């Protein structure tokens, strides 16, 4: 196993505010399922967005597949972005378009500008889209408009759009925060499946400790922009949760207690 992603001394400061991330470092192996947990405002979203440069880091180094993402020019950056899929809390689909149109959007990055502008997809791309939608159990919704779907279905379209990129890694920013427990479980199962069966690395921001404990190979806990825990779920103790969540910890330990009595 080689490290697909290596983050070193990453720091991000918005304007003159306090640092959103300070001196963050960790590594992620190919095919690993990694959860990032922490209270809101800890810097989880900022961290994910630094990795694909949706936010420009202030300093540090992010090695993805052997290149430092922070040094890339616009064109090279686009190329790297096509290798990294992103999934969002609010799905971020184009509501007026159909499920398959939204899925095919994932292909835009590796098409020429003109054919992308005109929305010309070849047969192969369409077949791939159908195949992926099938894998995510969306066969019956291919020509439905995105705004007619339930939250869980929308998120599955979000995953399809990311998968059609043939990504090496998925960045998921609170993918289940807007879903009911059942849909949340379905989505987490799909993500786990993708990591295990397709060998795609999954990096997921989570709010729920119990979910992180259940699904992850590795957990990164951050608080106030600093990494305060890195390790396998089985090594996570009550004290670690306390350190990650500070004063909020009591409720969370109660929630997580059933799964893992640290």
């Amino acid at each position, binding site marked *: 196993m080689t490290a697909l992603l290596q983050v070193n001394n990453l720091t991000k400061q918005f304007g003159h505010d306090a640092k959103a991330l300070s001196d963050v470092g960790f590594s992620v192996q190919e095919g690993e399922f990694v959860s990032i947990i922490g209270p809101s405002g800890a810097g989880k979203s900022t961290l994910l967005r630094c990795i*694909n440069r*949706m936010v420009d880091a202030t300093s540090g180094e992010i090695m993805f597949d052997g290149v430092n993402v922070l040094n890339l020019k616009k064109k090279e950056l*686009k*190329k790297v*972005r*096509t290798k*990294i*899929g*992103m999934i*969002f809390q*609010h799905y*971020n*689909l*184009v*509501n*007026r*378009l159909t499920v398959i149109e939204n899925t095919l*959007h*994932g292909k*835009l*990055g*590796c*098409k020429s*500008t003109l054919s*992308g*502008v*005109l*929305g010309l997809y070849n047969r192969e791309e369409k077949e791939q889209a159908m195949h992926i939608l099938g894998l995510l159990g969306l066969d019956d919704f291919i020509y439905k408009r995105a705004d007619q779907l339930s939250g869980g279905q929308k998120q599955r379209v*979000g995953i399809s*759009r*990311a998968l059609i*990129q043939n990504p090496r890694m998925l*960045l998921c920013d609170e993918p289940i925060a807007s879903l009911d427990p059942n849909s949340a479980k379905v989505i987490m199962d799909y993500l786990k499946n993708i990591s295990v069966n397709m060998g795609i690395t999954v990096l997921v921001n989570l709010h729920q400790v119990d979910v992180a404990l259940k699904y992850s190979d590795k957990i990164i806990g951050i608080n106030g922009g600093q990494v305060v825990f890195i390790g396998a779920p089985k090594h996570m103790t009550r004290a670690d949760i306390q350190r990650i969540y500070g004063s909020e910890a009591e409720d969370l330990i109660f929630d997580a207690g059933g799964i893992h009595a640290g």
Partner: protein
Amino acid sequence: MEVNEQISAQRQLLKTRPHNRMKVKPLTKSAFVTRITLFSLAVLTIYAFFTFDYKDIDFVDAVLLTIANLKAMFFEPHLKHFTFSHAFYQVFVTLGLAFLTTLFGAVIAVFLGLFAAENLSSKWISTMIKGFVAFIRAVPTVLWVLIFAVAAGLGSVAAVIGMTFHSVSYLIKAYSESFEELDKGVIEALQASGASFWQIVFQAVIPSSITYMISWTFLRFEINFAVAVAMGAAAGAGGIGFDMFMASGFYLDIREIGAITYFILAVAILLEVFATKVKRKLKVNA
């Protein structure tokens, strides 16, 4: 029993009301100024009617004559100096002027509208374009035509430029506001997958706002039709407006004016019906 109690309680309230009348609107400074203004306007209006120089016109006679004129105009319309087919052709010229200026305006406004939308451009550029466009919109279309007439001469060229100019500013506002309806997250999602600006515009932004864009463009087309009629008369831009100008100013034929008015009305109604149909269809698909 309870109901009765409530009613009697209400009666009690009603009874006490006349003693200290409750005011719904507090008498603020602005309300006071509004009232004073309205009152002085009313006084001025009445005063004006008493002090007009009526020469020898008798008010009742004048009203009766006006009614007679309107009757001649609208109940005895005829075409004398133009043929029916000529008028029909001229209506198309006017429609053409409206269509051309709307089309030019729409094409330019789509591109500038993208840069005026805050979610697609920077705050600074967006504010600049919006401010500039607000200024253009503040000056009426007719004035822009007259301004361009200084360089292009009074005629169809000035009309096309002036009307396009105002249409652009109107549609930039309409389009950029529709573009801004699209959630910033959707744009970010596509950026994150490596899509380029123009791909995002054509695959996400325009599909999301196309129904609004079409309805705004139609509205502008209707406005441009009305303006094109006026321009035919005022700026010599040709079309049915010019015929109307000739009928009234040159031939002094009010019956012909009536006929032309009916023509314009018919076209306006047709446009309206068509626009309503299209919009309903869009709503169904929206």
